[in-house]
């Protein structure tokens, strides 16, 4: 009956421009984070961790008791965490844009779960008296963390994780040589891949 009034609804503020501006800012931030995570891993930091791990290997091998051995490695774990945190922070700070804050968070998120798992498993393995599988478990779990954390990074990082897992598997099945596998994994791999990152990805 009555013609439908063709009055346009009262226009609310056009959301398009506002939304697009937000979207653009989000895109910039995400791209910067992705690009930082890409080379955010510090090669020099990795080399430093490799050197301290080799020293830890030597000191740990001289310990008469298992408790001494595990205390040395626990200390080395803390030291390498500090080195990693400091070196990544330095590399991230080289970028003086306030938007970049992603790489550290990504590394923390990918490494924390396997480290917690490793800590809990270590306690249980010590209680069960299975101390000789601990090096293999550590290498395997650290390898998984490096693989997941390295998925968005340069390709050498997940490859390093795979090498760590391979050494871990070998260490599990030949516990007599586990100190050597620890030296090769935590020492050697950090040195080699650190050097590759320094050479190819600027520090």
């Amino acid at each position, binding site marked *: 009956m009555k013609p439908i009034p063709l009055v346009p609804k009262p226009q609310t503020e056009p959301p398009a421009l506002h939304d697009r501006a937000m979207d653009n800012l989000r895109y910039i931030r995400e791209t910067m984070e992705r*690009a930082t995570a890409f080379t955010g891993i510090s090669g020099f930091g990795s080399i430093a961790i490799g050197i301290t791990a080799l020293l830890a290997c030597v000191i740990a091998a001289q310990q008469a008791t298992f408790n001494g051995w595990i205390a040395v490695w626990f200390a080395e774990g803390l030291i390498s965490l500090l080195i990693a945190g400091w070196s990544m922070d330095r590399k991230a700070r080289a970028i003086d844009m306030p938007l970049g804050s992603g790489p550290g968070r990504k590394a923390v998120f990918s490494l924390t779960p396997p480290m917690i798992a490793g800590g809990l498993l270590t306690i249980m393995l010590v209680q069960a008296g299975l101390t000789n599988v601990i090096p293999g478990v550590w290498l395997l779990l650290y390898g998984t963390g490096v693989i997941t954390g390295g998925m968005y990074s340069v390709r050498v990082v997940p490859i390093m994780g795979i090498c760590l897992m391979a050494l871990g598997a070998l260490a599990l099945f030949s516990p007599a040589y586990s100190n050597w596998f620890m030296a090769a994994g935590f020492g050697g791999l950090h040195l080699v891949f650190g050097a590759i990152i320094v050479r190819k990805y600027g520090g």
Partner: protein
Amino acid sequence: MAKQSTAKKTVPQKPVAEVHNAQPAKEKSAAPNLDRLIHERLRLGIISALAANESLTFSDLKNLMNTTDGNLSVHARKLEEAGYISCTKFFEGRLPKTEYKLTAAGRSALENYVSHMESLIKQMRNS
């Protein structure tokens, strides 16, 4: 304003103009002085990625942006012509490599763009 010939350039040029009015009429009322050159998605991505890194190679950028050789090189060329990024070519062994860096002009263009977007958002909130 004059279109530069695309002859080989070794030195990064000075920014031709801060404002590129490719389509002056269309969005002018809503977004005046918008830097069209980096408004385009892929170019904005290239600038952002370079802002977060000292330098990136062509293949780094290609992987990051998830794009094709042709697409990337066209847009990188545009940014290079505007003086926003600089480009060096060299050989690593036998492999030719292209390395991009953000110039000071490019960094300030990105900063301007970010503050432009922020002010747009603020305007909408206040009105």
